[in-house]
């Protein structure tokens, strides 16, 4: 199990950065297309992983639907205020007015914090003993990290950082996923009771990112061709997650 957790925390941090750095190298036109396709796809996977995977698992695991939904509410509020104070984080492309001026160090600190949370999510999801859920959480994190890191990269370069430096700093800040995943694996393995709470917080984070960050960006495109593309990609994201989640492997 630990192997899977480590594998997905590497893919979701270092792997996402490498994919993002490839995107930064290709032409802007292609980059924009891929990033916007990934945004739609990630919206579908985030919502499905949260609603069909994390929340049902948290509720069934704890037997406390009220407690779980209270934690989701608190989680959403927490992410609202986190974003409020770290507002530059929610921009996925380099045209964003507020975010273009965000200083490099803040981007990196925000990234480090966010990826630390990702690590916890991966560990908690695999520790439920439901392999499909772990896989779903891992894939979802990779999918939303790639456009996120592409945005961070663009901002760092925009701020005058060299490509090499931007890559190095971004790698360092985002690799917090890996120790976070390993530490939480050992902690949550002992305190199994709190796993549903972590699943609920993860679900809140997924819902918040999909609805408050990604959806408004998707709504900026209004041509009918784009609409169809977005809906198709969201549905593909949903279907992929349903398939991954049904891989199951439940042992309780």
């Amino acid at each position, binding site marked *: 199990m630990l192997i899977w957790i480590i594998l997905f925390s590497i893919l979701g941090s270092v792997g996402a950065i490498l994919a993002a750095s490839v995107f930064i190298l290709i032409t802007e036109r292609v980059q924009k297309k891929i990033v916007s396709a990934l945004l739609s796809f990630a919206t579908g996977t985030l919502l499905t992983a949260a609603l069909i995977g994390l929340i049902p698992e948290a509720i069934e695991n704890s037997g406390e639907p009220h407690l779980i939904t209270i934690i989701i509410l608190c989680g959403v509020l927490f992410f*609202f205020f986190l974003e409020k104070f770290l507002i530059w984080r929610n921009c996925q492309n380099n045209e964003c007015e507020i975010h273009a001026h965000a200083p490099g160090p803040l981007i990196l600190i925000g990234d480090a914090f966010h990826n630390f949370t990702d690590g916890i999510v991966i560990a908690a999801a695999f520790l439920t003993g439901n392999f499909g859920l772990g896989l779903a959480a891992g894939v979802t994190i990779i999918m939303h990290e790639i456009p996120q890191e592409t945005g961070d990269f663009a901002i760092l370069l925009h701020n005058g950082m060299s490509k090499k430096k931007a890559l190095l700093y971004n790698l360092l800040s985002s690799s917090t996923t890996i120790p976070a995943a390993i530490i939480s694996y050992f902690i949550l393995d002992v305190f199994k009771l709190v796993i549903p709470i972590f699943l609920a917080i993860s679900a809140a984070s997924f819902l918040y990112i999909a*609805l*408050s960050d990604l959806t*408004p960006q998707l*709504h900026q495109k209004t*041509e*009918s061709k784009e*609409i169809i593309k977005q809906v198709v990609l*969201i549905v593909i994201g949903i279907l992929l997650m349903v398939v991954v989640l049904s891989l199951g492997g439940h042992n309780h």
Partner: protein
Amino acid sequence: MLLWVILFSILGSIGAIILAFWFINLTKRTQKSLVSALVSYATGTLISAAALGMIPTAITKAGNAVQLVMSFFLGGLLFFFILEKLVIWRHCHDTECVVTGEAAGPVILIGDAFHNFVDGVVIAASFLINFNFGIAVSLSVIAHEVPQEIGDLAILIDKKYSKKKAILYNTLSGSTTIPAAIIAYFVLEQISLAIPYILAISASSFLYIALSDLTPELHQKLGLKHSLVQLILIFAGILTMLLIFMLKSTL
């Protein structure tokens, strides 16, 4: 109970429009700060009505079929995403379009009619759960309808509708809440098995509005003072919902 459903569907549609009209006549400055206060308060009530009321109730009523309830929730989110997309698309043919500024009158009214129809179904389903639940949900409907209708009225007046015409058309399109609530009341009373799933879809509409529509608006205001005001009002919304949910049902 039907009387309460009718009363609150009137308050949530025509009542909201009358309040909105009163707001429109205030000075721009007062109007703006009142609207942004209402948006924060509505965000708090919508999220907590969905998370503390509708979702747990839907799950319990569905005999703990969590995944099934959540599938309806997911379907609802996708539906509201596509709906919003189509409303934006119908009046936005170039990519540069600022959504609200360019919206054509009829599209606003059709969107409003449809949205308020959903509100009516939500109100009926909630009162069928119990009285407090109905009150809590109706209050969230009113809280988000007032700023919504203010925006609609402002666009219509901006589109050279006279004030009288704007309010007349808006009242007509907004009043779909009332027949929707009455029809939904009788239908859902017959097939009460459907209530948990209707609740799940209602919850997805609340969460979608709060997170995708209102939150980006709230994030446009930065700075410590605005953030604190938003924080307090969101908590006020949550507390209102908690208090109503915790009061013993009186009917």
